[in-house]
């Protein structure tokens, strides 16, 4: 572990990396100027809507002179780039932060250019981004729970799918959304239990065990859906949780209606985020949990029950994924369709890796991926000639780039994926 830490240090201040990043900032700045600003007329204005559709307007729409805005953005990126190149050692260990800022500026530049002479509802875009980020973040937290204890979970997709189906089915039968949601969580826990028994007790390869669960859920949910839910529509009509407005907070300009007038799932996600972040990194439970994922032998020597810790981790992970699945049917659509998660479990896995196995990192990644997703559907409306599919590819490519260590290697739990065998 010390070697990885050392390598990380070296990577961040390596001269090549410093140089590459500086050039990258310059290139992004140049791209804003060359691709977006150059061809703009001086009198074109970009209009950003600042109020979510349906909500009461609290602040006026944002009007930006397109060309000037883009030039300023390009200039800032350029300054960052020159700083990085000129100062010895550049921004040092803040390089990644600057990279984030520059990328953010680039995206903002792109939006300003895309909506030039038109109007884009920024608040609406943020709202869709958040709601698309919810299942991704919840799924990623399921992955974090398992993998921090050393059990790889590629079955997030299957667990979410099962949660979605069970939530819709039980919710419809009982007529209660809450019972539906609890069953969704329990179904996730059940699959988590299978994953745990296969990979901890029988020491099956954890990828294979995850694949078993994915295939099983895909088959089982489609089977139940084809056999019952499509024939008897009353079995597939659970309804959705209504939006909960938090009085006072929802009046905050711009962010209020997005953050504080939303589905229960959004609030739950934030609560889980804080609980998991604090739980993992500031409590005794979290220390034990992580030690089992980093060095199970040492943890065992110190009297931590490795098997029990891992069982609990995978069960909790399954429950979280089941909850995420419930969001699809009880939180957004109100109906179960076959294979409705459509690979979001794997994007959640990507978000977990992208977020460096940290809850808030995963949330940021979830927001980023959700943003790419919601922007993809906006492109056609704005009349941009970029195929939306390329934007939808972005999360996967970004994850591969992060995994390759171009932007600084993530630090995964050291014993992730290794079954534990007691000695003697």
């Amino acid at each position, binding site marked *: 572990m010390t070697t990885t830490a050392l390598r990380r240090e070296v990577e961040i201040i390596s001269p090549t990396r410093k140089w590459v990043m500086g050039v990258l900032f310059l290139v992004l700045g140049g791209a804003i100027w060359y691709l977006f600003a150059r061809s703009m007329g001086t009198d074109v204005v970009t209009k950003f809507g600042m109020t979510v559709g349906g909500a009461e307007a609290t602040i006026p729409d944002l009007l930006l002179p397109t060309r000037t805005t883009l030039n300023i953005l390009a200039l800032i990126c350029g300054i960052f780039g020159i700083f990085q190149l000129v100062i010895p050692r550049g921004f040092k260990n803040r390089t990644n932060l600057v990279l984030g800022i520059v990328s953010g500026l680039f995206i903002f530049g792109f939006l300003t250019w895309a909506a030039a002479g038109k109007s884009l509802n920024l608040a609406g875009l943020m709202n869709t981004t958040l709601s698309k980020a919810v299942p991704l973040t919840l799924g990623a937290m399921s992955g974090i729970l398992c993998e921090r204890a050393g059990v790889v979970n590629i079955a997030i997709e299957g667990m979410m799918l099962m949660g979605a189906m069970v939530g819709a089915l039980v919710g419809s039968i009982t007529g209660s959304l809450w019972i539906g949601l609890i069953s969704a969580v329990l179904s996730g826990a059940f699959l988590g239990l299978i994953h745990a028994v296969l990979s901890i007790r029988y020491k099956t390869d954890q990828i294979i065990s995850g694949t078993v669960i994915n295939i099983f859920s895909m088959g089982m949910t489609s089977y139940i859906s084809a056999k019952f839910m499509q024939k008897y529509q009353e079995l597939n009509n659970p309804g959705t949780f209504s939006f909960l407005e938090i009085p006072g907070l929802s009046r905050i300009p711009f962010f209020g209606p997005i953050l504080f007038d939303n589905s229960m799932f959004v609030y739950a996600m934030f609560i889980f985020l804080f609980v998991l972040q604090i739980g993992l990194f500031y409590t005794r439970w979290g220390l034990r949990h992580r030690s089992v994922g980093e060095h199970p032998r040492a943890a065992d020597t110190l009297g931590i029950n490795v098997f029990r810790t891992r069982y609990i981790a995978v069960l909790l992970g399954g429950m979280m994924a089941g909850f995420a699945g419930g969001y699809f049917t009880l939180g957004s659509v109100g109906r179960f369709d076959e294979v409705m998660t459509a690979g979001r479990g794997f994007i959640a896995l990507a978000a977990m890796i992208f977020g460096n196995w940290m809850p808030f990192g995963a949330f940021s990644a979830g927001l980023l991926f959700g943003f790419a997703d919601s922007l993809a559907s906006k492109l056609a409306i704005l009349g941009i000639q970029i*195929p939306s*599919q390329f934007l939808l590819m972005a999360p996967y490519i970004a994850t591969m780039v992060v995994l390759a260590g171009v932007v600084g290697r993530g630090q995964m739990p050291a014993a992730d994926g290794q079954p534990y065998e007691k000695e003697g």
Partner: protein
Amino acid sequence: MSQDNKLPQEKKSKKNGVQILQEELLREATGEKPKHASRWRRTAQSLAVPVLAIFTGLVLGGLIIVLTTTSFYVAWRISPIQGLKEGWSILVTSYSALFTGAIGDPARIITAIKSGDIDQIRRAFYPFFESLVASTPYIYGGLAVALGFRAGLFNIGAEGQIFMGAIFSAYAGYSLTGLPIFIHLPIAFLAGALGGGIWGFIPGWLKAKTGGHEVINTIMMNYIAFRLSDWLLTGPMKRPESFNPVSPAIMDTAKLPRFFGDPIRFHLGFFVALFFAWLVYWFLFKTKWGFDLRAVGANPNAARYAGMIVSTAIMLAMSLSGGLAGLAGGNEVLGLNYNLAMAFSSGYGFDSIAIALLGKSHPLGVVLSALLFGTLRNGATNMQLKADIPIDIISILQAFILAFIAAPAIIRTIYRLKEPAEGEAEIRTSTWGGS
């Protein structure tokens, strides 16, 4: 011998896959014959778990079928005996529909042959040949994953590689014109291998150069391939006169020839797949490269000390694995669909993992398990028609079988089998973190 007996039982079974493979490799290198129990007994022993896994999978699948049928509960309410009778008859109806859908109805075959009417004979044999047709992509997919396993790599991206193979084959199939069939067909077919090979090479290269885990990368590549095909089929590769996202039809010269008239779709691709299975066997077990690849899979460190270039072996294995998967896509386009449509592959990628494991990563085993899975999938269509059992029951069966293969201890506990003396060569991928 007496010393051997004194060794505690656990000690023997603790041998892991790596050690067993290492011993196997050592035996091969020194030309020493295994001294253990007779060959027949070993074969029987190694077959026991897969066969029992399939059987148990079918039993559990049957249980799900019965438990999700309403008439069973109606009968159960009258009396439990009535319920059991009803359950049994549901089971018989379903599985016989599966059988006749997969192999054919014996009575119908006999009457067809007696009548001598060629059209009737074709119809009677249709299910059997259709099963072979359904097995063909599974053979390629299973071989792809198995080759990866042999090199210690988990190629979970066969699905994406199949897509890329299909895209390349379709493109070569419709864009090249005026070539004779014996040139066009191989080009179009191997274009599939190229497409899949590229899609396998990228994660292999990333693994070799940066250590990025191939499981994550191949999953990501799957979705990149889906999006890419979405874009191609709605944009550059879209059939000009069509409203649907479908590619132009391939030339007649790129079609894999069919052996019989309609409705039998059995085509040359099946035999090509068998040939490739033999080729993979020959490559893995009879060539130096194959030996290197297996050595790297068994123990990369030992292989490195022995002077093998591990990174090259990894890239080679992933490219070949991707190429084989790509051939599955090419096979479907050139042999069945004659064009490329959206979402044409129905989860072959994940099924391939099950096939490779069931076949113990051996080409012969892969072919047999592919035949089984193809037969099941084909028969399930008939089961859906006749017995109203959704086709997805096959995925459930596959999941059960895969679980039992992956955790043979479950099967051994159920059937009270003894642990094999050699221990078990189990699949174990490297961990996320690598080192």
